[in-house]
């Protein structure tokens, strides 16, 4: 898939990846790649700005921990983030259904 096809959906994908539990940035990127069998490769430079945006919106929260002498930041879904994810999923299902119907008639 082209990276620009992910534009506008990165927030939803990150919230979905965080729904499995708290994780740090690289693990989130790897989780999205794993769930999509490698087809969705985030432009990783956009990963952290997206996470910071979600945090500023109160949809995720972060905390630092020290492991192996390194300070690491872990992100987790907030209650508002869970509600936003549910709404995104509903909205996506409607969008997907509409596009499918248009394409079916084209085929």
């Amino acid at each position, binding site marked *: 898939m082209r990276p620009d096809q992910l534009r506008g959906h990165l927030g939803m994908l990150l919230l979905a990846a965080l729904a499995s539990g708290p994780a740090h940035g690289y693990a989130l990127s790897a989780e999205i790649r794993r769930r999509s069998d490698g087809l969705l490769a985030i432009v990783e*430079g956009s990963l952290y700005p997206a996470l910071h945006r979600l945090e*500023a919106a109160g949809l995720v929260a972060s905390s630092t921990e020290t492991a192996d002498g390194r300070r690491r930041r872990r992100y987790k879904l907030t209650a508002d983030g869970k509600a936003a994810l549910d709404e995104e999923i509903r909205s996506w299902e409607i969008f997907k259904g509409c596009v499918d119907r248009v394409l079916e008639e084209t085929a």
Partner: protein
Amino acid sequence: MSRDEPIEAYMRSVRSSLHLPKKQRLRVLEEIENHLNDGAADHMRLGTTRNQAITLVIDELGPPDEVAAGFIEQGARAPDRTGPMRWLPMLAPLFLLVSALGLLVSSLTWYSGGLTTGEQIVQRTYALRALITGTLSCAAYLSIRRAHRDKAWRWAAWFCTGCAVAVALAT
């Protein structure tokens, strides 16, 4: 952990392009460096050498100036939580405590009895102020939370907090 030269060079380049407040800049740099190390370790688990792994993870992350630009754009849009707004949520519980103490003192003096009419009026005023402070504190807390997401609520947050402060000080 000693840094690998390519990671060191990448971090230098990001740092030079990252014009953000110090605290935010340190956070970003820390996250990027962790990302590079995590990514390199991940690639090495798949059998690449350390140098190849670092090259791959740097390619995946993108050019340093583009990475920095993403954060700067985000920094310009992020709500301002570095100013006085960050302290407001801490004031609300304090005022709730003040109002609870006010109610406690009022109740104790009420039950102790033997109050003159004037003292009863003062005592009732204390209780009323405590209730108002509590209500304003709750309103301040809720509007501050909302203001963090929607700047239009800032004035409501400041107004409620100001009123809570005024009533609490008067109490």
